[in-house]
């Protein structure tokens, strides 16, 4: 029987995008706040969001960053990197260019002390295989994000999983994003539409359409996904609000994925990192549309002791509430759920470091790595 897991509590600075973008906190100030207010110890950062000049990181900055993280008692978990395949206006990057582009970001992750680099679905199985020895050389595990509209048992994800199995590198895995396994259309987004003048009748139809798709299960393939996307656009147009159509469609299909919680079992051994994606907290202190308790329970029962980065996505539309209290409340739900599952979340930095080293035993965790 698998020993119960003790997931590491943490946060991605992406959750605080509105505060950083609004110049309320600079990077150092935000990291200090994350530590002081207890959102850690796990710290995830998006390279292109937070580090000026990324992926070029000079030695002095890397040293200062590592010193700051140590000083405040946080633990770097995942550096979110991007495959900017469309960076040139007239063509996509070829495979050699993409490998070179990703290598620079993997080097940055190592230099900044992140044991994991989150990569995205646009990286093919062939590219992941080519990146494996590069990841190994730098001691950085590549965790490809499984994000709606994909899900664990989606053909593209299973193709990656099968390739991982064949390649056999412990440096290849997944980041499980909870947005793939959502249980309802987020009420905070409905409130945002309400504030933009959407009628209650239209909103109830949006919810009913999402529920219909949820009953059918996640989209079988990209064509099915495209059809659902179109249905949301059509719904908005038929109800006199064509201006909301793209928004309904992007969020209804790309943020709120309707796979079942146990779908994650398809890839559980390869889950190296988790995005605790969520959208809001209701008057009962619960996440009304993400089954946080079930998801934490699943991780605990399956022995997961890696990090969970709380990833608050409600900031896109919720400009009437501070994200800080909402994120603290969601983390309280995680801790409660872990306890209910007979375990707990790790909130101590030293224990988190040890758990992460155990979770990624192959990683070199180099102190300095150019």
């Amino acid at each position, binding site marked *: 029987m698998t020993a119960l897991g003790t997931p590491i509590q943490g946060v991605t600075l*992406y959750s605080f*995008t*509105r505060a*950083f*973008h*609004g*110049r309320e906190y*600079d990077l150092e100030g935000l990291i200090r706040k994350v530590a002081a207010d207890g959102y850690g110890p796990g710290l995830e950062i*998006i390279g*292109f*969001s937070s580090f*000026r*000049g*990324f992926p070029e990181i000079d030695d002095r900055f890397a040293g200062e960053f590592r010193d700051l993280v140590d000083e405040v008692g946080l633990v770097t978990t995942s550096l979110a990197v*991007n*495959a*900017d*395949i*469309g*960076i*040139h*206006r*007239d*063509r*996509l990057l070829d495979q050699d260019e993409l490998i070179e582009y990703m290598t620079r970001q993997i080097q940055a992750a190592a230099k900044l002390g992140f044991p994991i680099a989150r990569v*995205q679905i*646009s990286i093919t199985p062939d590219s992941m295989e080519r990146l494996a020895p590069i990841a190994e050389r730098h001691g950085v595990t590549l965790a490809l994000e499984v994000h709606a509209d994909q899900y664990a048992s989606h053909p593209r994800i299973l193709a990656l999983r099968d390739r991982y199995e064949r390649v056999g590198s412990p440096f290849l895995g997944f980041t499980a994003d909870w947005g793939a396994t959502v249980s309802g259309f987020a009420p905070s987004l409905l409130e945002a539409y309400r504030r933009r003048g959407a009628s209650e009748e239209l909103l109830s139809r949006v919810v009913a359409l999402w529920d219909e798709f949820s009953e059918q299960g996640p989209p079988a393939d990209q064509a099915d996904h495209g059809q659902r996307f179109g249905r949301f656009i059509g719904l908005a147009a038929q109800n006199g609000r064509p201006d909301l159509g793209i928004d309904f469609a992007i969020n209804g299909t790309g943020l709120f994925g309707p796979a079942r919680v146990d779908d994650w079992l398809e890839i559980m051994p390869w889950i190296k990192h988790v995005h605790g994606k969520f959208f809001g907290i209701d008057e009962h202190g619960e996440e009304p549309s993400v089954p946080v308790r079930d998801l934490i329970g699943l991780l605990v029962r399956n022995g997961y002791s890696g990090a969970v980065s709380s990833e608050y996505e409600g900031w*896109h539309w919720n*400009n009437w509430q501070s994200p800080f209290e909402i994120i603290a409340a969601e983390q309280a739900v995680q801790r409660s759920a872990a306890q209910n599952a007979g375990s707990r979340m790790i909130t101590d930095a030293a224990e988190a470091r040890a758990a992460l080293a155990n979770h990624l035993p192959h990683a070199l965790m180099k102190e300095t790595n150019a």
Partner: protein
Amino acid sequence: MIADRIIEQGTLITDGTRVSVEVRIPWYRALPGSCIAGAALSIDGVEAPAATLRWGMNGRTFTFDELVGETGEWWFPTDSAVLSGDLVVAADAAEHEVRVDLTLYIPYIIIGDDETLHIEEHDVKTMPAREAVAA
């Protein structure tokens, strides 16, 4: 995303023949110049001629044609860029309606065989125009 922040309040400047306004990226991460695909600037409903538009970023000034191949200079999320163009606006106490439209490519989201996602965002704010100070 954060389109309500595109125009920086109180940054409309005029020298009598050209105007400029500071703009913020409506996205959570830095994008290179090559992904800044287009803009429009209008004051009180009058649009600056497209050929006269210039994009100021990281201490450099670009035409939109020059941005196409620019992957060295990046628009960081906390930086203001400067959008300018030919328009006659007086520097006085009058309030002006400023509208900025932006088209950005999101280089990591590929939506078709060779197609990169682009987003179109706009913002409208009202502010007086200040007189340009000679450098």
